[in-house]
């Protein structure tokens, strides 16, 4: 018998050196790499314990044709995590070998109620037949179905799920991480940089910044996204770290300056920073003039002066004032990155301020920067100090240091309590980063490697006269991709044979038409789902409600807010069918009628992915590292089966979205499926062939490299930035191609829905609806803040015995409610006391255990999110407090994000 150490693969050591080889060396390294003996006891894979997607190597024990994982290590070949893993990544195999794994299709026992864990094992055929029969018997129409897709899907399977929905005529997708995560925060950044999901499109260059400002948002470093934490840790000595957070987070613990700001007031702080930076010229004027729309001219109404192409409705020119010639000149329209070149090719010195009283086309004009300066004129440090509880001197100092240190970096943001002003906050943060010229440059926000290629490819297509409307939607970089997907499908009744748009769009339109608050950009939210089940949503005069609900690794009861409403929604007798595709029991799939067993990432066959969060460009492959339990299937094969059963052209649509050959892919996938094989594996083969062709290497060689290292790097970061940095060399994916200090996207919202400060195209102050912006707290009342623990991601810890044990090592620091001892004394609360927390905005209550600590503001209580699950089968059941039970969503109006932090709580000792 081999000992475990004999399994350790020699290539774990040699792998690291291969990662640094570029495309040229790739060919040269061929012989040595390919001839190396392959010891099959450690297999590469991609961690899926959070969305960072670190490279891993799975040590396995292999016998009798079965592979069992014994230890997970970091993959030294992965440029993101560089051989390291966080505690979640280390603990991934506990998920695979949990005794509660779902390893057979399950059908609800007749007579049992949704919410009870009473299922019987079934065959795949029986489970599929059950689904079909239910939907037929109840005559459920495609538009009455919805797919709730969890965070794994958001991170890896967006095109496939959209393709499944579109090809199945299902106009409802609820991306469960959308509102709380991607759009509810990042959308503000998107309005400046054109990104969509910044935590895989941007990897801030923590390792090279000289000044680092983090505003809340603790997931990147404090809760460990491995590559990010590592880069910052290596640079801590050389960079000044300033952290705004009402609690002393793991990151704040290492800060040069911790600023325990009042919850919900971060935007006042950044507005005052903008006031200072613009007022004192603390910005990179050359960069701002050349690559942002700061020099663009606005008329007296605040509208951009521009030319629009009548056919495409896209801007064909903008106007800037050329300081050299002393006159207004035309600069490029959509997808241009450089204001120093006029449309006629002449050189321009774009002025950030125009001479007073300048008239153009008969109108008085000024620049975007001038308008912005007027907007922030009243946001003085003294004004902000009164709101934020941070001294004006501190605000001045941070603005000065951030604005004058190069390179300066502000945390883009990942995970935080949400307010009505969260999107505007992130917009202001992106403005700060743009003002110091730190976009796609060392020490700033650097776009992921792949992202550059997408932009370069799309531009090449457009320059050849291609039509953007016909360009594969998933290949459009950034926010315009989901915008296009919404406009084409989910917000467009005409796109579907049944002529129904998504229920969220129907709900939002109804709200607007009744003069109530709607949502400007309902991107895969759950808006209208709960209202629909109460008969409150109409489309074309008829009630619109959902009757069939598919949860694909989604746990809305715990990972979205409003847990009680979700329980009611899932248990509602009008809900004809609830299907879950999942790995483990959770609080939501306890409401399923049928559960189809998916595979753990270690076992799964996947399509080819890009390098995710890395600055490098390349590809990654996930193949099973360990043997999956017999009755399970990779979820994409499950979707593939469901589609085939209904005669739906799923793979063809996937191919169309990705710009692949639809006929070839559909044929490959279908023949694999019919012969009992994996459609996913067959499509991955197709992708490898295409990648080999594009990079000019042999298929066999590429496969060997992928199988050994898990990934192949085609371009290193430096040459890639030298060629494709955005906006230095390529446009950013905003409508104008520039970093937009004036947002053309939110300007569009004004045209559609009228003005609201939430979508001010420049910037606006939005006070939190708590006493933070004036007023005072009652004796037992507190502001509320929450964040993420390093051992936790979504609810991943709840079904992982090791992570749960590690959580207990920190006790109530992780599982309890943080209360400052001074406040606790006042309320006679002792350490370990049971407390009731009541949300003063919604009346929701929840219980928790007091953790007395000096690490939190006396007027604030804090907790870690995502503990407190209920399903008794889970190792984390009943431990900690469920955030989703304390927060009824109350959507804000830009994307419908739940205002998950915008309330106070009252504490009562039980």
């Amino acid at each position, binding site marked *: *018998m081999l000992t*475990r*150490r004999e399994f*350790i693969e020699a290539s*774990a*050591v040699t792998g690291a050196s291969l990662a640094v080889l570029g495309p040229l060396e790739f060919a040269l390294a061929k012989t040595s790499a390919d001839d190396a003996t392959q010891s099959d006891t450690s297999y590469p894979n991609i961690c899926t314990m959070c969305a960072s997607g670190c490279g891993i190597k799975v040590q396995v*024990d292999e016998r009798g044709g079965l592979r*069992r994982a*014994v*230890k*997970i*290590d*970091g993959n030294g070949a992965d440029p993101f*995590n560089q*051989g*390291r*893993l*966080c*505690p979640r*990544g*280390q*603990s991934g*195999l506990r998920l695979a*070998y949990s005794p509660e794994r779902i390893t057979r299709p399950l059908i609800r026992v007749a007579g049992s109620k949704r919410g009870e864990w009473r299922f019987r094992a079934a065959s795949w055929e029986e489970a599929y037949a059950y689904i079909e029969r239910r939907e037929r018997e109840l005559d459920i129409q495609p538009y009455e179905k919805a797919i709730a897709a969890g965070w794994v899907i958001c991170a890896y399977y967006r095109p496939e799920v959209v393709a499944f929905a579109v090809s199945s005529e299902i106009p409802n997708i609820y991306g469960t991480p959308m509102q709380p995560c991607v759009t509810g925060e990042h959308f503000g950044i998107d309005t400046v940089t054109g990104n969509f999901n910044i935590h895989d499109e941007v990897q801030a260059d923590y390792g090279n910044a000289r000044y680092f400002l983090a505003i809340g948002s603790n997931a990147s*470093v*404090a809760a*460990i996204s*491995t590559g990010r*934490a*590592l880069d910052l*840790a*290596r640079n*801590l*000595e050389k960079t000044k770290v300033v952290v705004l957070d009402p609690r*002393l987070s*793991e*990151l*704040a*613990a*290492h800060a040069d300056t*911790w600023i*325990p700001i009042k919850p919900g007031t971060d935007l006042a702080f950044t507005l005052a920073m903008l006031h200072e930076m613009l007022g004192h010229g603390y910005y990179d004027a050359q960069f701002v003039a050349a690559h942002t729309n700061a020099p663009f001219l606005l008329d007296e109404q605040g509208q951009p002066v521009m030319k629009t192409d009548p056919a495409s409705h896209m801007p064909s020119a903008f106007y800037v004032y050329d300081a050299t010639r002393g006159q207004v000149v035309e600069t490029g329209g959509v997808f241009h990155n450089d204001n120093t070149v006029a449309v006629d090719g002449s050189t321009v010195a774009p002025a950030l301020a125009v001479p007073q009283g300048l008239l153009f086309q008969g109108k008085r004009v000024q620049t975007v920067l001038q308008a912005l300066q007027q907007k922030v004129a009243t946001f003085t440090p003294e004004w902000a100090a009164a709101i934020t509880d941070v001294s004006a001197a501190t605000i001045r100092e941070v603005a000065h240091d951030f604005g004058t240190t190069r390179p300066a970096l502000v945390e883009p943001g990942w995970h935080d309590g949400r307010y009505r002003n969260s999107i505007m906050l992130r917009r202001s943060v992106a403005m700060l980063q743009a003002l110091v010229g730190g976009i796609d440059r060392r020490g700033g926000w650097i776009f992921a490697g792949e992202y550059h290629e997408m932009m370069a490819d799309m531009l090449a297509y457009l320059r050849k006269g291609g039509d953007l409307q016909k360009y594969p939607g998933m290949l459009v970089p950034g926010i315009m991709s989901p915008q296009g997907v919404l406009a084409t499908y989910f917000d467009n009744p005409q796109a579907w044979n049944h002529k129904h748009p998504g229920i969220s769009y129907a709900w939002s339109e109804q709200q607007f038409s009744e003069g109530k608050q709607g949502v400007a950009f309902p991107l895969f939210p759950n808006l209208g789902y709960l209202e629909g089940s109460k008969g409150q949503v109409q489309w074309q005069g008829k009630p619109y409600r959902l009757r069939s609900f598919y949860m694909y690794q989604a746990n809305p009861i715990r990972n979205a807010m409003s847990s009680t409403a979700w329980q009611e929604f899932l248990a509602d007798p009008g809900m004809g069918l609830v299907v879950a595709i999942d790995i483990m029991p959770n609080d939501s799939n306890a409401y399923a009628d049928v559960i189809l067993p998916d595979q753990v990432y270690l076992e799964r066959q996947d399509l080819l992915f890009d390098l995710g969060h890395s600055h490098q460009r390349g590809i990654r492959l996930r193949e099973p590292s360990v043997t999956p339990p017999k009755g399970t299937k990779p979820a994409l094969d499950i979707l593939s089966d469901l589609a085939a059963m209904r005669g739906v052209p799923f793979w063809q649509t996937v191919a169309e979205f990705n710009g692949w050959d639809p006929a070839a892919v559909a044929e490959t996938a279908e023949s694999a499926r019919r012969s009992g094989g994996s459609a996913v594996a067959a499509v991955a083969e197709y992708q490898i062939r295409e990648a080999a062709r594009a990079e000019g290497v042999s298929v066999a060689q590429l496969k060997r490299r992928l199988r050994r290292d898990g990934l192949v790097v085609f371009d290193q970061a430096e040459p890639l930035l030298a060629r494709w940095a955005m906006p230095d060399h390529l446009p950013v994916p905003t409508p104008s191609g520039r970093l937009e200090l004036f947002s053309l996207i939110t300007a569009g919202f004004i045209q559609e829905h009228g003005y609201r400060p939430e979508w001010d195209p420049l910037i606006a102050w939005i006070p939190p609806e708590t006493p933070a912006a004036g007023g005072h707290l009652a004796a037992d009342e507190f502001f509320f803040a929450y964040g993420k623990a*390093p*051992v936790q991601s979504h609810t991943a810890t709840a079904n992982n*015995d*090791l*992570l749960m*044990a*590690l959580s*207990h*090592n*920190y006790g109530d*620091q992780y599982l309890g409610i943080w209360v*400052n001892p*001074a406040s606790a004394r006042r309320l006679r609360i002792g350490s370990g006391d049971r407390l009731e927390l009541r949300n003063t905005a919604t009346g929701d209550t929840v219980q928790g255990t007091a953790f007395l*600590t*000096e*690490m*939190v*503001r006396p007027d604030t209580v804090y907790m870690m999110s995502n503990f407190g699950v209920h399903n008794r089968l889970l190792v984390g059941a009943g431990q900690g407090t469920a955030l989703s039970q304390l927060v009824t969503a109350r959507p804000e109006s830009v994307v419908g994000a739940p205002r998950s932090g915008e309330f106070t709580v009252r504490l009562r000792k039980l």
Partner: protein
Amino acid sequence: MKRYGMVLNVKTCLGCQACVAACTQQHDTPFWSGNYRTHVENVVIGEFPDVSREFVPRLCMHCEDAPCVSVCPTGASHYIEGGIVVVDQETCMGCKACMLACPYDARYVYDAGDISRARIVYGPDVQQTSAHVDKCDFCYERLEEGLEPACVATCPGEARIFGDLNDQASRVAQLVSSGEAVPLAPELGTKPKVFYIR
């Protein structure tokens, strides 16, 4: 001759416990009993807002004058190459003398209940097969393979630095000789080979 040592950089430790998770699975230790070979202490000092917070990773100090080795009646606790202090699980009779002798609280009991549970948790090839007193062994089996200890290899804070203290070119030797890294409670006189940067 090699003299292995570790430096823990408190300035960059993020308290994430990746090291603990790695160690646990490298050595099949009984997390269900709350016992680990390494753990991370969270030290909070002061009153809001003048409060500081530090994470201090702890493990066996691999003392050069190890009281655990001298008190061990069976020789189960002993030195191996590189000055690593290990416990032989077959020889250990579980008298716990070493636990009393160790001033750093670096040891715990891997009891019979844990042994049977380990077979379920880690599978049939579990490495821990008889009850004994357990502790860190600097992952000497990994060292033989040219790998770093599991905790060091995974640390996202790069807070654990490992090497040969006798090799003056090594980072650990430099950090120690420059005085940047110092032992914890040197006055105990056991000559630890684990050092801290604070």
